[in-house]
């Protein structure tokens, strides 16, 4: 009997631990799994270049960790909860601050990173917004290159199997509903792959690219969260999407949205509207520009909305009062970035806009990165709860590496206990059917205009400031987009076809977008990154929404339950 499927027969590969994603979380996971159990067979599945895709690579400012005896993990914890408006899962936030100094030790002594030193030869820590102590570890203003470069080097020592340019498609269960592995697509050859794995670690990063002005690398299309959603896992805090206050404006160039780092505000940069007012005086007169990202991004947005923005729809950041030489010495990467587009940070104000940056929401995990599906671990931006309603600058790469390391430790414990299982054939067929659909169809829209539609809609209706009417419109529009996404057709060969890849990215983005709009409509208050023009107040007791797909498919109904945040370590009224 001949095959009737319109995709090639998948290759099958068995592994102990499949790590999806090759950023900070993914590669720290590999490091820890293979350090704990060198005999494990570990496979990295990365839809881009290993160690050179995703956003850890793009980290500028740095990594928050308590190293100075005058600082304390209790203070870092308090700052993290204050920043997160007490929506955080306190066990996760505590794990973050507790492990961060230990991960710095490991990055320096085992991984071979070298962070900037003070004159005494000890690690230098700089000021970041929203923190009560200067605790941000860095390598110049392009810290991510050092961390990811050295982690990538470790892979040559450890030798995991690297599936570069291989996109993970779907998690797979066996016929008893146990985790069995995942489907994947080799982007180079266009061939499908079934990976049987004892443990799967999802560490793909967030989905902020779904906004018109956005900071992340192109790979960040919510793949991990969407995979988990399709597999029926619960999500939390999906409405909590962080906008960074200072994204570059470079017209229609792809550079638009790239972040000018937080350290500029830490070092005393001023923000002005088009009328030359230091507008932060209206929004946070005490902390001014050093207020947290949520407050500063919203202030910029409101200034622009009120007609006090520049012609290009931005505001201005100015640090030139420190002097050309000082700005060039402390922020060489940022200066180069502005000169690239004909402006000059060292010599005058630069046009910026809030830019979609980081997703606080994600899959529910425990402190060891376990999910409710045995054998499935989630680490980094794909998980939710650590940052609550707003992430502090410098806590992002800390989260990726801290929880990546923990996922690796957990995977090393779990893998010997779990058997290899046979994936259910109908799940494999459904997954590959979805993936090969755009290539097989001859009639249908290209993905690019749909991506643009999604970005405009999210920016307009599910953006920095939201309201009930806009969210209701977004809900309807996203349903329409979901329909269109399932009709996309792409021409060209299966090999190295990035239009096809964009079609698959888009399908994931729309799934995540629907959960964001749904959760944003539920939260009838303003808290952290989630601002409602029609509900400006903040409720006394923080609650969060746990969402799950309904039985009618990933684009169908959303079931949800409301939970109260447990103040297991610290309540807002507790004295520091």
């Amino acid at each position, binding site marked *: 009997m001949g095959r009737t499927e319109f995709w090639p027969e998948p290759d099958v590969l068995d592994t102990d631990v499949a790590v999806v994603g090759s950023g900070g979380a993914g590669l720290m996971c590999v490091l820890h799994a293979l350090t704990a159990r060198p005999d494990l067979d570990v496979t990295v599945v990365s839809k881009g270049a290993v160690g050179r895709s995703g956003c850890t690579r793009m980290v500028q400012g740095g990594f928050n960790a308590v190293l100075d005896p005058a600082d304390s993990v209790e203070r870092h914890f308090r700052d993290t909860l204050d920043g997160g408006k007490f929506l955080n899962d306190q066990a996760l936030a505590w794990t973050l601050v507790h492990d961060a100094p230990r991960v710095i030790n490991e990055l320096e002594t085992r991984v071979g990173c070298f962070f900037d030193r003070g004159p005494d030869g000890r690690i230098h820590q700089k000021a970041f917004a929203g923190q009560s102590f200067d605790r941000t570890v860095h390598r110049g203003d392009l810290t991510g290159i050092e961390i990811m470069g050295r982690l990538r080097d470790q892979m040559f020592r450890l030798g995991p199997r690297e599936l570069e340019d291989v996109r993970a498609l779907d998690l797979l269960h066996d016929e008893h509903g146990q985790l069995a592995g995942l489907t994947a697509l080799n982007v180079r050859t266009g061939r499908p792959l079934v990976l049987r794995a004892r443990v799967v670690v999802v560490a793909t990063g967030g989905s902020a690219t779904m906004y018109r002005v956005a900071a992340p690398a192109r790979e960040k299309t919510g793949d991990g969260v969407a995979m988990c959603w399709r597999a029926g896992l619960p999500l939390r805090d999906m409405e909590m999407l962080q906008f960074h206050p200072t994204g570059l404006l470079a017209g229609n160039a792809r550079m638009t949205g*790239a972040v000018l780092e937080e350290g500029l505000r830490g070092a005393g940069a001023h923000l002005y509207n088009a009328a030359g007012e230091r507008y932060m005086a209206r929004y946070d007169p005490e902390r001014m520009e050093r207020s947290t990202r949520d407050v500063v991004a919203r202030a910029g947005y409101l200034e622009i909305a009120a007609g006090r923005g520049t012609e290009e729809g931005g505001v201005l950041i100015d640090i030139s009062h420190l002097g050309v030489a000082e700005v060039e010495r402390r922020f060489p990467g940022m200066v180069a970035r502005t000169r690239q587009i004909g402006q000059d940070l060292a010599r005058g104000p630069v046009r910026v806009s809030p830019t979609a940056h980081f997703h606080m929401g994600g899959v529910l995990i425990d402190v060891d990165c376990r999910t409710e599906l045995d054998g499935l671990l989630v680490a980094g931006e794909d998980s939710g709860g650590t940052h609550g309603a707003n992430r502090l600058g410098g806590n992002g790469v800390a989260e990726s590496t801290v929880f990546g390391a923990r996922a690796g430790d957990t995977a090393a414990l779990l893998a010997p206990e779990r058997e290899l299982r046979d994936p259910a054939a109908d799940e494999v067929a459904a997954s590959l059917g979805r993936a090969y659909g755009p290539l097989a169809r001859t009639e249908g829209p290209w993905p690019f205009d749909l991506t643009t539609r999604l970005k405009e809609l999210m920016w307009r209706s599910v953006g920095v400031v939201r309201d009930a009417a806009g969210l209701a419109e977004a809900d309807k529009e996203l349903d329409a987009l979901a329909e269109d996404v399932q009709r996309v057709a792409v021409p060209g060969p299966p090999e190295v076809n990035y239009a096809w890849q964009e079609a698959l990215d888009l399908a994931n983005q729309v799934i995540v977008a629907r959960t964001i709009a749904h959760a944003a409509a539920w939260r009838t208050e303003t808290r952290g990154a989630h601002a409602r023009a029609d509900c400006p107040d903040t409720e006394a007791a923080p609650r969060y929404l746990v969402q799950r797909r309904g039985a009618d498919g990933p684009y169908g109904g959303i079931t949800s339950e409301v939970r109260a945040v447990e103040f297991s370590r610290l309540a807002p009224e507790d004295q520091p």
Partner: protein
Amino acid sequence: MPGEDVRVSVTRSDPDAPAEFTVPRIRPMMVLDALLAIQRTHDPAIGFRFSCRVGMCGTCTVRVDGRSVLACQTEIDEDTEHIRVDPLAGLPVLRDLVVDTAPFWRAWAAVTPYLVPGEDQEVGMDAEPAVIPPDSAERETIDPSLDCIGCAACFSSCGIASARRDFLGPAALNRAMVLVADSRDAAGAHRMDVVGAGSGVDRCHYIYGCTAACPKGLDPARAIRRLRRGRFGGKD
């Protein structure tokens, strides 16, 4: 008056695929923007790679009018009406502008590119980072040579490496120099053997293509000179 269009010639793998395109000029405009415009309005199947678009990931490297550059960092200025875009030299083409960087990374791996701590050095989550002042001789050697993004622009620009002759190439040798100079590393002698062997520093003819091409302003030629001196026990 410069035109409002830019003409772009792209080397395609399929000889029948379109290779000449005209895209509208935007301001500012990088080579990456031109490639995206081609993909979005002319040929969705055109193959090119990028990720971060701010010069940090090192994956969008191509040759523009013969020079190996990052597409995201190379401006199409007002006076430029036509560019030609080719894949990097010395690396196998997967499709169109997308190359397989495996030969570059094989060379990189050959120099033991990771830190090898000494036997007596503690490593891990409970080990203390080394105390090394920023004005120490080793840091003054190393710091200007860090921040390599592995983009392979130097490899493609090097007449020896890109000709697929047996040469480790500038980036790998730069990485070797950084580790040899690092007081935390104990594998310096082994690495000096590797860089001193047949495919090492002696292959370099000092054409300086690497240093001219590096988008991060590193100076791999200087690193190679330093390794050569180090091999003869010289100081500098």
